[in-house]
């Protein structure tokens, strides 16, 4: 087991494991935030595994997850809008902590990759990961309540 795989194991067990616990227990406002954070933490874990196994094509998994995770959260935010309006989530601390984990992992992988097309791809994954999850968290907290419901 190399350092990348160890970091991936830590992220998976501590981060994703913790969010699974959060999804399975507690009130709705906690479950939706944990659901959002589970993809935000699984994505860096997949990036670390791709580096650990030296299989650059595995980065595509992280890319797809970074794109579809926040989209899934937006669906929950829409479907549960009424319940969440009564009891909105307030979880910016863990949201920014997860974004920080993502940023740190992407930065470390960028340093390891060096200047190349793969580095641009990593940066794109990082931007999707962090931007998507901040937007999804804002939607869960009711930040887009002014948006017209179609």
């Amino acid at each position, binding site marked *: 087991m190399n350092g990348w795989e160890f970091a991936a194991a830590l992220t998976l067990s501590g981060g994703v494991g913790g969010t699974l616990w959060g999804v399975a227990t507690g009130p709705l406002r906690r479950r939706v935030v944990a659901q959002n954070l589970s993809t935000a933490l699984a994505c860096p874990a997949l990036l670390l595994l791709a580096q650990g196994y030296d299989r650059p094509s595995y980065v595509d998994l992280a*890319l797809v997850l970074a794109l579809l995770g926040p989209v899934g959260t937006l669906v929950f935010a829409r479907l549960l809008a009424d319940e969440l309006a009564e009891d909105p989530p307030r979880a910016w601390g863990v949201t920014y902590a997860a974004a920080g984990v993502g940023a740190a992992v992407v930065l470390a992988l960028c340093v390891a990759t060096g200047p190349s097309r793969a580095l641009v*791809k990593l940066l*794109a994954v990082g931007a999707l990961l962090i931007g998507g999850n901040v937007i999804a968290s804002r939607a869960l907290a009711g930040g887009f309540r002014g948006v017209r419901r179609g």
Partner: protein
Amino acid sequence: MNPRTTLLDTLRTTPLLDPRRTLPVMAELLAWWAALAVLWLVFISTVDPLELAVGAGAAAVGALAARAARRAVTGR
């Protein structure tokens, strides 16, 4: 149709035949296409002519979809 409307008027009001409207539309599609093609170029692992051809085609379809989505959101 108004009987005083000439054929030229009809052509001008058809969006893609009016140069004043065609240019912005083509410019927007070209900008989307360029951005999506660059994204494709970054995401593929090996660069070869077939990949570039498929990427150019996919970016063209994506540019049409992106403009349609942009118009649906901004309502213009």
